[in-house]
């Protein structure tokens, strides 16, 4: 890592019931991951993917969480500091769609972002290749998205990686836009040391003068 401008880094959390296919979606999207077992052992798989937005490269640090209740004890640590959140459901499974509200709420509670109303979410409806078994219509999903502040909606399937890519691009772009609104930072040195005339350091005298 050299001194000049570093690649922007975004923490992305993926939430959704187990069985909606998050893992196979991620496998499509990310070509390198640590062993799968972290999800089963520590509660999430950790993936990295670089995307190009305009002429900037952005690194996405993706936390593919386990869909189980039990891992929510780690919710605060996992969710906080996230730049964006991907919600996933299975279009052939209505229950997984109904869970979305609680996933979103849970996330907002645990992560407590500064601007919850405008926090970047993306919704993925997975397994659209199983059209005959569809239980949640595209329209229904989209209207849900609208009620939640116009969350972008993407229909994906593990076979069609393209849409997954578009979804991540969108969310990265959104998060990046937020980031560049802030001015460049430099450390501030406003705090002058006030010398207390009675100041005694605790240690013994220590110098050879």
């Amino acid at each position, binding site marked *: 890592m050299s001194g000049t401008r570093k690649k922007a880094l975004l923490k992305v959390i993926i939430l959704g019931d187990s069985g909606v296919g998050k893992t196979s979606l991620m496998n499509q999207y990310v070509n390198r991951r640590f062993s799968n077992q972290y999800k089963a052992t520590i509660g999430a798989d950790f993936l990295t993917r670089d995307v190009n937005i305009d002429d900037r490269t952005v690194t996405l640090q993706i936390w593919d969480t386990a869909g189980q209740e039990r891992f929510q004890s780690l919710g605060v640590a996992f969710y906080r500091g996230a730049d964006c959140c991907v919600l996933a459901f299975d279009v052939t499974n209505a229950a997984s769609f109904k869970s979305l509200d609680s996933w979103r709420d849970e996330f907002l509670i645990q992560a407590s*972002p500064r601007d919850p109303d405008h926090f970047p979410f993306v919704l993925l409806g997975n397994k659209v290749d199983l059209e005959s078994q569809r239980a949640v219509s595209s329209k229904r999903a989209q209207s849900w998205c609208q009620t939640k502040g116009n969350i972008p909606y993407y229909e994906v399937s593990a076979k069609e990686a393209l849409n997954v890519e578009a979804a991540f691009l969108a969310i990265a772009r959104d998060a990046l836009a937020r980031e560049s609104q802030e001015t460049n930072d430099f450390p501030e040195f406003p705090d002058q040391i006030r010398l207390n005339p009675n100041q005694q350091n605790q240690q013994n005298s220590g110098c*050879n003068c």
Partner: protein
Amino acid sequence: MEVEVPGGSEAVGGGGTDTGSESSFKVSQVEIEDVEENLKNAEAIFEHLEQLPFQVFILSEFGKPIFVNNDRNEGEVVSLAALICAFVSRCQSWGDSLMTMTSQDNHIQFLHKSPLIFCVVSKYPEQLDQQLEVLFEQICSILSKSQLENVYKKKGDNYDLRKLLRGTDRLIDSSISSWRASPINLVDSSISAIPMNPSDREFLSSTMASSMGAAKLDGALFGIMIAKRQIAAIVRFKKYVIHPRDLNILINLVSDTTLQTDAQNWVPICLPRFNDTGFFYAYISYPWCNKEQDVPACLVLLSVKRDHFDGLKEVRHQIVTKLENNSKFFTNFSQAVKTPNLYQISQIGSNSESLWSFLYLNHSSRQVCMSASK
């Protein structure tokens, strides 16, 4: 002529004779681990030590990587940082705090100092916890502890701290390298003094003290002469003391080679052991860093007031002039600094054949010195 162990002991034996002769300044060969050749200068040793395998990670407590000291595949680093965060968090969820993991040949140490997590992977287990504490203090010296703690509160948990640390990679690297370069300084947080004969040091100290005193700069608290990562002299206003850990931070700062020109630098720096919320301003100069004189000594003048630059510039000028005017001193000083004498076994008067080396640590003065090996 025996070289005095600095730190307060009385002159031993026949003092007064000249120490200037070359023959009494022998540079001993210091063997470091399995290096065959003689590494005569600090830089080469440094470089060699840096090659020892260890990896350091600094990340936010929510998993975002901030610093890594090697060129591991970047993608891997990003995922590793998240994983480290997960481990630390899991222990936290149990009401506990993760400290180490070891396997057959690796030691991994963790330190969680909100809002940061530090992690080092090393082949050697010694003092890893201290090393991480030192690194934390290094970060605090760049940002101040209060600013570090507040920035995430002000800017949000997802803030990228690398923005505030832009350009400081060198400093952090230097702090990490210093673990190997001066490991003994970690022992009880001590400093080592460069060997000089007492009269020279006395002259140096009093010159610095009088020049600083004469300037009457209220808030200029410390003057330090540093060479080869060791202290030549420190002067201070009576009430105030500087902790060895803070001194080591300063040593890291001035060891940055980009500062070793004859330009002068005015650098804000927080010394966490002194005051972890505010900043000192350090006037740093290498007065003799030119082809003719080539004395690698660095003068540091510390003040709490931002506007003391000009005043301290004048102080420096005074000090340099007076030192140079005393040619006898200056010759000795140059010699002592360019090729530091290493303590000899024979100096402690032991005739034992089996004594290989010694290390002397004075708790009350917090000074340490080490001999060359036999």
